[in-house]
């Protein structure tokens, strides 16, 4: 599930400042030492600390209990399952690394899904972030009128459900009839078999993702742009820097943390792509089959839980690797 998430400001500095809150106990102690009420006050301090501890653990326990049941246990159990041959009836047989060996040596379809996922992710993410950046940059222009109306329109796709998006675009990307092929024919371009070719299916699915997320990213970039101090641009102008230079040397570096945030989010979302290919159709050559859809089918239509669990772990590792590569590349952008 790709959760729509507000962008939090987060720094570990928060933790540190809060640690100083321990300082108030010190103050209390100071007061406590003062003459008469010494005994009662220090006793009160003690009981406060204890009750804080008790309430503290109590208040955070719902999350940790729930996470224990639906987070930690499954994590371990998925690993356990992945070393077994396990079907829906629960008959299990320990087979060691056989599932993993199978994935790497004997399952070209899995690697096809990896390729599909990455292909769709790249052709949806790169134009999406560039478009979002441009939109945000324009929306930030001072003289622009009707700003809130533009913002509203551009953000609207993001509240639509994935299912609705997939269904509408499936209709638009009809292979025989369908709006997009009609528009192409107006320009004298022959209709594309969207469901029959790699190119067609990947572009169609990437379009769904893009349409839903450009506005979201644009709004986030816009917030970032508004936080860049105007003086920077003024100084650059005095030094004779043009607008495009300003965009490249001031805007992009200042936006870097936010760009990283959006890249990470679209990576996570891209690796989990599921509903769009499921509803659009995976196509005759499995060109629309993504990693998560394949995992779902292994587990819930073919019921080979063990193999599906091994796939889940390989996916997890792939996601970690991609995130690290991402981080390295985005870091490079800053230093160049």
């Amino acid at each position, binding site marked *: 599930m790709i959760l729509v998430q*507000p962008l939090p*400001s987060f720094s570990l500095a928060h933790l540190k400042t809060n640690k100083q809150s321990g300082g108030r106990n010190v103050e209390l102690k100071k007061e406590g030492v003062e003459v008469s009420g010494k005994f009662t006050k220090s006793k009160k301090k003690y009981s406060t600390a204890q009750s804080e501890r008790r309430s*503290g653990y109590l208040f955070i326990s719902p*999350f940790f209990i729930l996470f224990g049941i639906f987070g930690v246990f499954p994590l371990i159990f998925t690993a356990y399952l992945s070393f077994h041959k396990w079907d829906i009836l629960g008959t299990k047989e320990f087979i060691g690394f056989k599932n993993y060996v199978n994935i790497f040596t004997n399952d070209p379809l899995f690697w096809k899904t990896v390729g599909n996922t990455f292909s769709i992710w790249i052709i949806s993410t790169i134009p999406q972030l560039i*478009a979002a950046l441009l939109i945000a940059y324009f929306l930030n222009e001072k003289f622009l009128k009707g700003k809130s109306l533009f913002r509203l329109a551009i953000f609207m796709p993001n509240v639509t459900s994935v299912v609705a998006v997939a269904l509408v675009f499936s209709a638009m990307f009809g292979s025989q009839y369908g709006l997009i092929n009609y528009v192409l024919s107006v320009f004298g371009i022959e209709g594309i078999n969207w469901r029959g070719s790699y190119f067609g299916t990947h572009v169609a699915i990437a379009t769904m993702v893009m*349409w839903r997320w450009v506005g979201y990213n644009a709004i986030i970039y816009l917030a970032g742009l508004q*936080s860049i101090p105007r003086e920077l641009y003024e100084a650059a102008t005095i030094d004779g820097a043009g607008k495009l230079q300003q965009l490249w040397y001031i805007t992009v570096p200042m936006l870097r943390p936010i760009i990283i945030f959006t890249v990470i989010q679209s990576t996570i979302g891209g690796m989990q792509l599921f509903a769009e290919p499921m509803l659009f159709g995976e196509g005759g050559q499995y060109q629309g089959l993504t990693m998560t859809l394949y995992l779902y089918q292994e587990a819930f239509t073919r019921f080979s839980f063990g193999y599906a669990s091994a796939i889940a*772990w390989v996916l997890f590792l792939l996601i970690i690797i991609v995130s690290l590569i991402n981080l390295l590349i985005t870091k490079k952008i800053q230093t160049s």
Partner: protein
Amino acid sequence: MNEVGQKAFPKISLYAFLTVSALLSIFPFYWMFVVASNTTSAINKFPPSILPGPNFIANSLAVFEEIEFFRALFNSILISTVVTLSVLFFCSLAGFAFSKLTFKFRDGLFIFLIATMMIPPQLSLIPNYMIVSQLGWVDTLQAVIVPAAVNAFGVFWMRQYISGAVPYELIEAARMDGCSNFRIYWNIVLPAVKPGLATLGIFTFMGTWNDFLWPLVVLKDSSVHTIQIALRTLNDVYSTDYSLILAGTFLATLPILVVFLLFNKQFIAGLTEGAVK
């Protein structure tokens, strides 16, 4: 910024670009209604009709016959509401503890909580399904509600918000007056963080409403389908009869669109709240 520097983009091209972007964003909604109000054969011809037709009601009635639309709508509303209320309560409670109470391992536990956000949901899909079926919860709404009742992101969000919005003195004063920690949370913290709750609430509601993979796995019987799963069924039944499919889709999209248009200020402000700092 037009007062400084030469312009890289003339005004007119800027307006043109934004207008085209806005139209592309809105067009699929319009198109949804066009298809939903025509017959499929009116859409499946060259050129297709591009104006709304007279068949919307007929198409909608056919949808109601095929899937339990209102039942699904009710399930979605129920699930999203309960999950949202539960997330708001438990996440703000934990957020309060993480930001204002002192206890051992607090910061370590908080970092652990943040780390849990990195785990992709696919990884726990299969065991979670087994747990839910062991509990006998398959085809019940709690299968979707309970695992979503509190989440790491919400705790994180509320902690950041409470840290900034509630001054220490206020809590100390209440404690001097003999308030219990829970009463401090309920009577002092909660009223002070209403905007933070609103943002988290909106996003939780939308996220739950739009969730697809997990409900698909655990809600199989049509009586417990959410609206998203019902749409998927509709798609399977009619496959290429897009008038009916998109009539259902349009009806399902309308409520959430209305909610968005009513609260769009909070929505967009909430989204960018943290970024501005």
